[in-house]
């Protein structure tokens, strides 16, 4: 084949260009640690990486929500713990009040004690969380859910519920909306039944000197039912806390999985890349030397 002088230069320069471009590409990969520098390098993997990034972000958000849910549930549990103790204490005082040897003054002092317990219970029922929301108000968390009432006829203490039946939920996994609030009516009962009515009527009985044998029995039955309600809710919270913990494990497994998928899609194999860099450097140097040697040849060097 006939060779023109331009071909020798053109081909040499083209080889240098190609080798330099390859070397630069590998250098950029090493500098960024990514094997995909632009989507054009691997369009399918790039698109998939975007989807996995979203899945990872959503999963992370669920993990955050699990934290919120756990905090909220523990707050309710703490309050219910207090409510349980008050009911237990009131039960003991009710038993004590049934002792026939007690004087009216003694019963009066028990009544005074129970009035304080009534207020303590009301305070628990009207607890607010860090956001200032009433815990037991359902969705209507701006208003105190329990109002202290005095029966117009008998003068007995009581309470009415002004919250609603809404249950706040948090999304703790893609398919699980976990209840994190419990309606006041579920935990403390309504105007017509529940801890406030039981306590209020018993205090009234103590203060008006009603038949203690009947009243104590009624109060104990009522308080037992109230305690049941509180304990049922606590049991639900307990199992939900276990669930949150398990979801946390699943979530961190998933996070790891997504991170590893992303890494497979995007990250550079440094061993391979550095060996490639060395190889490409050798090629470039060879191309440079070959260029200098071939272009240095000319018959004109020998003409005089």
């Amino acid at each position: 084949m006939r060779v023109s002088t331009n071909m020798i230069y053109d081909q040499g320069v083209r080889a240098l260009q190609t080798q330099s471009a390859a070397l630069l590409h590998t250098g950029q990969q090493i500098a960024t640690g990514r094997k995909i520098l632009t989507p054009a390098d691997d369009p399918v993997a790039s698109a998939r990486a975007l989807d996995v990034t979203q899945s990872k972000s959503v999963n992370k958000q669920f993990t955050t929500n699990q934290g919120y849910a756990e905090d909220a549930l523990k707050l309710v549990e703490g309050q219910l713990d207090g409510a349980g103790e008050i009911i237990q204490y009131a039960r003991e005082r009710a038993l004590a009040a049934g002792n026939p040897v007690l004087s009216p003054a003694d019963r009066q002092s028990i009544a005074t004690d129970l009035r304080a317990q009534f207020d303590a219970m009301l305070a628990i029922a009207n607890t607010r969380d860090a956001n200032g929301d009433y815990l037991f108000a359902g969705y209507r968390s701006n208003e105190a859910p329990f109002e202290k009432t005095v029966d117009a006829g008998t003068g007995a203490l009581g309470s009415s519920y002004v919250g609603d039946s809404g249950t706040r939920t948090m999304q703790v996994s893609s398919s699980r909306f976990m209840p994190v609030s419990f309606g006041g009516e579920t935990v403390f009962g309504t105007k017509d039944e529940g801890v406030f009515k039981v306590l209020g009527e018993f205090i009234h009985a103590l203060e008006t000197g009603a038949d203690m044998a009947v009243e104590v029995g009624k109060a104990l039955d009522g308080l037992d039912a109230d305690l049941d309600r509180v304990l049922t809710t606590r049991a639900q919270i307990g199992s939900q806390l276990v669930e949150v913990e398990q979801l946390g494990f699943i979530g961190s497994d998933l996070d790891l999985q997504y991170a590893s998928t992303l890494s497979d899609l995007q990250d550079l194999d440094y061993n391979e890349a550095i060996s490639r860099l060395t190889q490409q450097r050798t090629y470039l140097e060879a191309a440079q030397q070959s260029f200098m040697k071939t272009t240095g040849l000319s018959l004109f060097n020998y003409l005089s």
Partner: protein
Amino acid sequence: MSSLLNIGLTGLNASQAYLNTTSHNIANAATPGFHRQSVSQAARDPQFLGGAFFGTGTGVTGVKRAYNELLETQVLNADNRRAEYAAYNRFISQVDNVLADADTGLTPALNEFFGAMQSVSSNPTNVAARQALISTGETLVARFRTLDTRIGEIADGVHTDMTASMASINGYASAIAELNQRITVSQVGGAGSAANDLLDQRDQAIAELNKLVKVSAVPQRDGSLSIFIGSGQALVLGNDAKQLSIGDSLDENGRRMIMITGANGKGAPIAESFLSGGELGGLLAVRRDGMEPAQRSLGLLAASLATAFNEQHQLGIDLDGELGVPFFSVGGAKLVPPTSGVEVSIDPTKLAGLTGADYELRNDSGTFKLTDIATGKTVELNAGNDFSYAGLKFDNVDAATLPPGQQLFVYPTRFAAASLRVEIDNPRNVAAAAPVLASTTVVAGSSLRVDSVITTNLGNRNAGQALESLSVNYTYDAVAGVFNAGPPLGGWPATLAYSAPGDMLSVTGPDGIELELKISGTPAANDVITLGDNKGGVADSRNAALLGALQTDKLMFGAGDGTTPSATLNNAYAQLVAKVGSKAREVQAGERTQMSLLAQATAARDAVAGVNLDEEAANLVRFQQSYQAAGRVMSVAQRLFDEMLAIAR
């Protein structure tokens, strides 16, 4: 003796011609487009003398250039494709980089926005979380606008390059026309053969023109070449060159039309399809198949996000118990001309049918035809109102708004990304709560439960209104197996049938409000379900949860009627990235292929036409020697003549 002298002289002349041509080759070794020249030589006619033919020396019959049409065409073809790919690649790779960049891409902004939505869902009363939602919403729309603007800037770059490219095309066209004339003249003067170097110059001008647009050259008898560009548009005829320019009027795609102006000064629009190949062809293609689809996809994404989010947001109530107002605003369909009276809007109920396509709506003698500008697919539209097609709703389509023969261009979502805004600035107005609350009052032993009540349609109730006076009680009638309403009914249905646990009941209430009520458990006689408004339900985040779910809900790329959506917002964005990435990859590979084809074709051509300096050096030595030898012949003749004179003396 005189013949010897003459023979020597012819040899001297021929050697001189060789030496001149060799020097010319050496001098032009690096001249672009130069073809090495060679002298053709033939023995002169012999003389019959004394019974035999005697040679009379040599003669130069011409100087030819080493030119092979096939090899030249191969180079031109490869260079044309290479230039086209290179222009395409120069711009598509910029779009590619913009879309995928972790800092400028859409995915991170979408994730942050929906993350903030989740935070509101977990803490609906927390004003900071609500403010964060608005702020990340601002970031998201700014990201949309940035992407759109950036692609717009890249498109401006395409336009600038097109202008420059056309200026060069015009320059080469004029140069070729002028060379045509000079070659015609030289051919007449040169007894039918044209000057090699002029031919080289014209070929080089064609080669340069060919990098800008596909060229075909048709030789004419007078030695001129007629130049046609693209798919047959005449650019140079004889010594008359036409000029390309970008006009002011817009075509159906909203692009400024390309004009071609002849010697008479009259311009005519020329279809883009006529200008294929080369840099200009690549620029037109990247604008048509790269930038514009990317902008349309972004617009479609922006419109889909805004529509879906607004629809759900308007189904919720805010901290003041008022129905949600649109969270985002997005510009409507652009119509050209804008004031026909025809109305085109996105149909939120068929959102997944939206495609991002642009349309031409034409009154074809009373038939309204809607044509997808990109694909050419045409459907017939019913005149009048409320015609739905591909996620769009057409209103006021009649002969009054669009008289026969008239047309209207519709760009439904193309400019949506640029016009996307967040409309809410007060955190209280985030409608995180659901408007309706259902509760139960059950008798002992009943397991009736309301699992969910989802508001799917607000009927006549409007955004920003308080949703009040909805309350109704449904009491279970165990004998009939239905829930009986009221009294009073207040616009609610008199009975709710309940057949099996887990039933989803669709209920239409006052003012056309539609609910989906999911009930489970087994009801007992006199169980009561109460439906009521949720005013004051500030800790309710049911609507926030539904808004958050839009991140992973499939909303886009459904059938034409809006059913069977197949992609989430992020899927759709990832698809755009993959599409642009694949295109960039394809043209990068194409450019590499064409470069190597060009290298091969150039090598093949240069093997024939290129100058080899070693060869020329050898020729110098060779023709120097033949010159010396011819000179020697003449000196021998001189000496013989002297001898003769000496004899005569």
